[in-house]
């Protein structure tokens, strides 16, 4: 059986909680070890689906941009078309995060523009963005 990174981190977290923290007489150090255990547990559980979450989030934003491009006009519409047709530059977390950052900046611009419109299409898209943001947030929730 192959030892995974997640299992190693789980073991380290358990050791900090059960073996290290109880042996520390200094309250500040003991508390730091306990919090380090919690941090390692959270990070360990975030590894497996980290790329999948980012790929899905980026794809969802591109789908929203594709839909919004026909509602928006001018420069914003051109930016939306370009972003809708873009793809992730790679599968490293740093690459996906940079792309998420680029797409989120445009999402904020689109959201701001939609809030200033009166049309039913804009209202639908506005609400769609809020629902997508909830899904993004819940997918990234710390798991401990």
């Amino acid at each position, binding site marked *: 059986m192959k030892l995974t990174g997640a299992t190693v981190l789980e073991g380290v977290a358990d050791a900090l909680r059960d073996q290290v923290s109880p042996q520390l007489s200094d309250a500040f150090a003991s508390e730091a070890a306990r919090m380090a255990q919690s941090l390692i547990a959270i990070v360990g559980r975030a590894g497996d689906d980290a790329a999948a979450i980012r790929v899905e989030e980026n794809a969802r934003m591109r789908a929203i941009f594709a839909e919004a491009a026909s509602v928006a006009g001018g420069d914003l519409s051109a930016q939306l078309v370009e972003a809708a047709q873009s793809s992730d530059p790679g599968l490293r977390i740093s690459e996906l995060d940079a792309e998420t950052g680029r797409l989120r900046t445009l999402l904020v611009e689109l959201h701001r523009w939609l809030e200033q419109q009166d049309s039913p299409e804009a*209202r639908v898209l506005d609400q769609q963005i809020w629902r997508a943001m909830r899904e993004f947030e819940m997918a990234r929730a710390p798991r401990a």
Partner: protein
Amino acid sequence: MATLESRIAEYLAHRMPDSQDVAVDDLSRIHGGSSQETFRFRAQWREGAARQEKRLILRRAPEAGLVVAERDLEFTVYSALAGRGVPVPAAHYLELDGQWLDRPFFIMDLMPGKPGHFFGSDDPYEGKGTEVGRNFWRHLGTLAAQDHAALGLSGLRNGDAVSGFWERELLHWEAMLDAGEDYVEPIVRGAIRWLRANPPPEPAKPAIAHGDYRCGNFLFVADGSISAVLDWEMCHVSDPLEDIAWAMNPMWTVERHLPLEEGLAIWEEASGLAVDRQALDWWRLFVCVKACAIWTTAEASFQDGTNREMIVALTAMRANHFHRKEILDRMEQRGAVG
């Protein structure tokens, strides 16, 4: 190399020229505010034939923290609020010269009692939640009743302002987000736009806002009294509803121990002000944005290596998500999600 104990003793001897044989021991670091390093210690000295002893707290500026605190802010506030009905420790010495302990610091009394912890306990007040809750709201109301200008606190952020507190504070925390965000959080930005488009009315009066009034930032004793309100690093002048909204934040609210309406009635009696419930709702969304800004700054300081405290990283990971989710819930109540 001189120990921290000996360096503190040297400083105390400098500040107390009539003392002899100043010694410091029983020094330990404690979690007390995430922005400043906090140490407790015992100081002993002689004055003539009399032996003196005091338990004290040292608060030293960090290299980086959750918030950019002015170095003399807390000391100034502790000094101004002494004897005003809000329990605070006596603040003794403020030192801005880095020659003594490398960074600015101040020394104040160690107060009796313990802080509650909002993570990990359903009963942070050890069976005295009702009493603590009543005192919690009474002290906050007493704070709101103070005249900050008369106390010499016009130097606080917004201290000279007479209106527009909501906009000033929103701009302040938005700038913190701009500086700390690696990539933008559309949820938080959506909330900021809503807040700007739906401003609250002006407050009945400007008030001293503690800025972080919650479980963990005060000490309680066995009978449920609050012996000291601590961690005034984010103190400023604002609408008094800001501190109320922060205190009601579901991450640490005392509502679990005391019904909110009873708490607000105590606040109204102590402050002499009425709580505008509709305006309070605006401030409840605002404090979620503020929380995200605080923990985004924390996240950034851990990421760039200027603060590597476990509490900073752990709270940032939990609190940022918690408050973005809280924003989503509040925006949904406002009909944003349809």
